[in-house]
């Protein structure tokens, strides 16, 4: 610390210089840390990016078996009117057969099961399906109606998803995410 402390350390009483030294040092550290924060925080998504967080999509022309792709927060979101066969196949899967048993549905509890109903738009709207079409491995866009289960297939490193967008094989760790949404069948869906 101050120069005389190195010579006669334990002997001397803390004096005014020691106090000033510590106080200035502390103020400096706190000051530097609080000044550093704006420099880091400016990197995070800005207000305009966050504001563009909600969109409304017309789904009145979406027939059974067809898909609409929209862009939400810079990412593709798939809106699909699933066929009865697809719903049935997804329903028949046992939870124990899934690599990731969690629904990953922003509209439900964080630990809800990945049953088909929890992955769809809900009771009575099982055929409606809204999902962020981004592979949970490293972020590529999987191709629709492809792969072993007729769901999605990611060309990047070969992850295979079923018709409810749940990961079945490959390096991806999780089911693809469902965004927060509010869907009126045959009319509109608000995403975000």
């Amino acid at each position, binding site marked *: 610390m101050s120069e005389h402390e190195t010579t006669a350390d334990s002997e001397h009483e803390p004096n005014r210089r020691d106090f000033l030294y510590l106080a200035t040092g502390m103020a400096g550290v706190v000051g530097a840390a609080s000044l550093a924060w704006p420099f*880091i925080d400016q*990197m*995070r*998504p*800005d207000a305009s*990016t966050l504001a563009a967080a909600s969109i409304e999509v017309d789904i009145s022309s979406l027939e059974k078996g067809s898909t609409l*792709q929209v*862009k939400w*927060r*810079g*990412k*593709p979101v798939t809106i699909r009117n699933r066929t009865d066969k697809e719903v049935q196949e997804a329903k028949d899967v046992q939870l124990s057969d899934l690599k990731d048993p969690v629904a990953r549905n922003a509209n439900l509890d964080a630990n809800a099961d990945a049953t088909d109903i929890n992955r769809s738009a809900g009771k009575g709207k099982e055929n409606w399906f809204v999902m962020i079409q981004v592979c949970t*491995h*490293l*972020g*590529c*866009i999987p191709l629709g109606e492809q792969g072993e289960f007729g769901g999605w297939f*990611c*060309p*990047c*490193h*070969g992850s295979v998803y079923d018709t409810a967008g749940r990961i079945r094989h490959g*390096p*991806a*760790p999780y089911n693809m995410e469902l965004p927060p949404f509010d869907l009126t069948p045959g009319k509109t869906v608000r995403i975000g």
Partner: protein
Amino acid sequence: MSGDHSTYAPRSGFTKWIDTRLPLPRLMHDSFVSYPVPRNLNYAYTFGGILSIMLGLQMLTGIVLAMHYVASTDQAFTSVEFIMRDVNYGWLLRYLHANGASFFFLAVYLHIARGLYYGSYKAPRELLWILGVVILFLMMGTAFMGYVLPWGQMSFWGATVITGFFSAFPAVGDWIQRLLIGGFAVGQPTLNRFYSLHYLLPFMIAGVVILHIWALHVTGQTNPTGVDIRKKTDTIPFTPYATIKDALGMSVFFLVFAYFVFYMPNYLGHADNYIEANSLKTPAEIVPEWYFLPFYAMLRAITFNLGPINSKLGGVLTMFASILVLFVVPWLDTSKVRSAVYRPVYKVCFWLFIVDCLLLGWCGSQPPQGAIVLTAQLGTLYYFGFFLIIMPLLGLVEKPRRLPNSITEAVLSRRQTSAGRPAGATAAPEDRG
């Protein structure tokens, strides 16, 4: 090494005036003219000089490209095409910059291999080595962000995949990823900040290079025998001997570089990067530039969960570890002998390591299926085994060959077999004895 016995003698009144005020000419003279270097340096020692020139070239071409480039998601791609077609000599400047990055990495990898072969990282050069690894890290960051700038398909999806690595970290991963890209997906904020950092980092590299050379001039260079400089006849002055040797090495290197720039400027690049970025369509396969392929292969080699670490996080950690391990190499190698020339077993392991890196690079360029995955896994195993098992254990069990008493002795014993040549000032080739 340079400062203690300076031989600089200012001649004119003007240089004397300078010397008593800011002795920069003295520093330059002592560092690059009278600076003593081992007399037996071979061409493996010319890459340091080549690297300095490459850094200068990247900065020069980069700064003029920046006069025409526009960092906006709707104009970046067109502005690069505009550089190629409309800007006077724009094609040359861009091809120099893009191929320059490749040759920069080629030189740095050869430079690192030289260090691993001749034990350049051993005491007292640990800090010199660590500064080098810091430079490698900064170079990788710079090249990755530079590759995003032309905003082609590979730029965009490369950026998505690489920043996606960070989402592998539990709890904080998504937060970090958003901090890096400034949004929910790669977009305008990402391009803008990458441009800013791509401009900045090379100057930081230049700063670290100065420290690197400072540390070099404190400890002096190693040499192919690995024995320390003991007497005056062991060294020769940097200029003209090392200067001219470096110049010849550079000329050959730049001839090859020029061949690529003028005759096959797109050979090292990926054709998909001439397609403008499309955030809704992933290319059939994402491959990084060649200089990242070995690391990419190690990333993809981890296809299995390791206890609580899932395959994605495991791959990312493995990839980072593959570079971080270089930092501790000075403490992993337990052998007292510096140069691989006198270490018969290490020499074999070293060349296997080089083959392994090439093999990993090849795996990284292939779609990850079947035998490729297994090969990459074995390659990763040897990569880490070389550093973490072979280096520490071999030093304890290997019986090194007899070391020469001095550099001079090593050089002269070689001379006896090729008598008639003047045992003069020419730097002798490596002693393979």
